[in-house]
């Protein structure tokens, strides 16, 4: 029953050597992704969620970026050791990526048709008429009406949601085994976001792909991901099956995020939101201990001194991991009792 491991990331560490100092962007990220699995990577800006994915794909500018250490095995091959030419054969074919901003990730001076068929000709060796036919099928698949005619249109003739559909069509063109979606709906309106999520869910089953969905919105991944991975300051702080992370939260950062979100389906009754104090750390001067300790009301002395490793949670789901020195269940219980007592 155990599915095959598709992507095995080991101790990925990425730094940016800038004029203002070294930015510790990704610090020892380790995880496995199985075939057909959807992984939701959640974090705020600067948490390293996008940079870690871009690094795996060899898409960070080097310099200033540098992959200090780590291995990324994709079907047994270490992506970080591939040459640029070898990597080019993986990108778009085996692993495809869609980005946040469909305005800037399409070339404005080439038609949509040219851009979709490029990958088909390059990776699958199709000729012109074959690739055009396939491109039209793909546009049809992602719900663009009049697909054949629209192949000759330019990106500016499409709306934001339609452009993101084009990006998805391009991503799917070579039947990739893994699709990395980097905040693909953040720039879109909520009704269009719902359209895109629905489309991706349906296509994922059809194409039997694994997916990494990077977002800052816990709501989006709640209904989409099998596994959730929360990142903070370049580290994974909690990881587990979606339901476990939401219902049996073990990390104070995840817990704080979930509590600070107002709910659409519940009347607020004008209750104050529980806020996380302070702001994310400057990753040029990473704190010595747990980076979240300064903002964490439950932090212990050990948190401030020593970075906690990502370990299986006690008495929890075997696939559920969290990085903290405290047991969130008991400290929350204690805090609630104190609040009642006073």
């Amino acid at each position, binding site marked *: 029953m155990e599915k095959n491991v598709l992507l095995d990331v080991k101790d990925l560490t990425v730094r940016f050597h800038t004029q203002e100092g070294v930015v510790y962007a990704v610090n020892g990220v380790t995880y496995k992704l199985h075939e057909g699995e959807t992984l939701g990577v959640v974090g705020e800006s600067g948490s390293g969620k996008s940079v870690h994915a871009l690094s795996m794909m060899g898409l960070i500018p080097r310099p200033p970026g540098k992959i200090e250490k780590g291995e990324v095995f994709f079907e047994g091959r270490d992506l970080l050791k591939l040459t640029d030419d070898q990597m080019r054969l993986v990108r778009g074919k085996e692993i495809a990526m869609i980005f946040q901003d469909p305005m800037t990730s399409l070339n404005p001076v080439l038609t949509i048709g040219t851009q979709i068929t490029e990958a088909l000709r390059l990776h699958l060796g199709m000729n012109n008429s074959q690739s055009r036919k396939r491109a039209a099928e793909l546009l049809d698949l992602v719900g663009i009406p009049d697909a054949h005619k629209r192949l000759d249109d330019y990106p500016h003739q499409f709306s934001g*949601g339609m452009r993101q559909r084009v990006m998805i069509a391009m991503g799917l063109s070579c039947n990739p085994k893994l699709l990395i979606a980097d905040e693909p709906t953040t720039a879109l309106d909520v009704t269009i976001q719902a359209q895109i999520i629905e489309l991706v869910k349906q296509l994922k089953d059809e194409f039997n792909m694994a997916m990494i969905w990077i977002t800052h919105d816990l*709501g989006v991944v709640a209904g989409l991901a099998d596994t959730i991975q929360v990142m903070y300051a370049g580290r994974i702080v909690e990881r587990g099956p979606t339901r476990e992370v939401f219902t049996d939260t073990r990390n104070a950062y995840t817990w704080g995020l979930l509590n600070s979100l107002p709910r659409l389906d519940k*009347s607020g009754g004008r209750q104050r939101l*529980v806020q996380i104090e302070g702001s994310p750390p400057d990753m040029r001067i990473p704190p010595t201990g747990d980076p979240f300790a300064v903002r964490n009301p439950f932090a212990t002395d050990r948190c401030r001194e020593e970075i906690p490793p990502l370990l299986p949670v006690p008495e929890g789901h075997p696939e559920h991991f969290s990085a903290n020195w405290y047991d969130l269940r008991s400290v929350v219980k204690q805090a609630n009792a104190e609040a009642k007592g006073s």
Partner: protein
Amino acid sequence: MEKSKSAATAQSGSDVILSVRNLKKHFPITSGFIIQRQVGAVRAVDDVSFDVIRGETLGLVGESGCGKSTTGRAILQLHKPTAGNVLFEGKELTTMAPPDMRRMRRQMQIIFQDPFASLNPRMTVGSIISEPLQIHNIYPNKTERQDFVESLLQRVGLNPYFINRYPHEFSGGQRQRIGIARALALSPSFIVCDEPISALDVSIQAQVVNLLEDLQQELGLTYLFIAHDLSMVRHICDRVAVMYLGKIVELGRTDEVYDNPLHPYTQALLSAVPVPDPTVEEKRQRIIIRGDLPSPANPPLGCNFNTRCPVEFELCHHAPDPELIEVTPGHWAACHRVTQY
């Protein structure tokens, strides 16, 4: 003449601070080089009427391009309205002479979305916040003014020690606090919050929202809260108005609108918002609306929403755009389906 029957007016007896009546803002589309002529208009705001009650937070929600920000700016006369009336504290703003309008601005301020673009990078925090004080000649004495600015900084949760720093030295959340301090400097009674938290990280949003709520309670402020984050709007707003293509399609008490949305657009909009709870997400039925927002330069015939509406029928295509009608006390909707039965 009484078109304001569809004005979503407050119940009589409530203390209205702002009345907007049949407000329109059309941006001209011109054609031609040197000699330009108008060939059309973007109907950004098209006949919008509502009241804001003193001390409340009225939410204005909708997707990008629906005219919510333009409405906020037209109220403050930052965009000259094409037609309609804006009454603030009983005074008509659209025809007010510029010197009077300037005095009026003391009472009505705005907080902008982008904390990076809305603060002058060449001015210190102190001079940004004290500029409105100088313009309106409040605290002519320099030390008094400085003391007041420091107290404002403290009030919004910033260290008064930062007074001589420049905006680039602050994070997004701190910059938004500076923007709030600037808006508070003249002790306004009404603030337009134009997407004040959209540009902020999730963990910072709650901080800013809590601050806005605290300030409202302490200072008795009235907010027009423009946003597209519907979960946050439910939390912060007493009443909410939903806009689509330049018009208000539904207005009512927040819980009423969220629990019992009448307009099919509101229903679709609410069902599209993801909820951070896998158990709820599993059970939810999404209403996926087709297509994209039509261009406000060329709105569809009949009801504005008929091109995407899941329940449109014949009437929606040829009858004029439905009017905003009070369906249950205080709950207004503009839909032929709702008002037919």
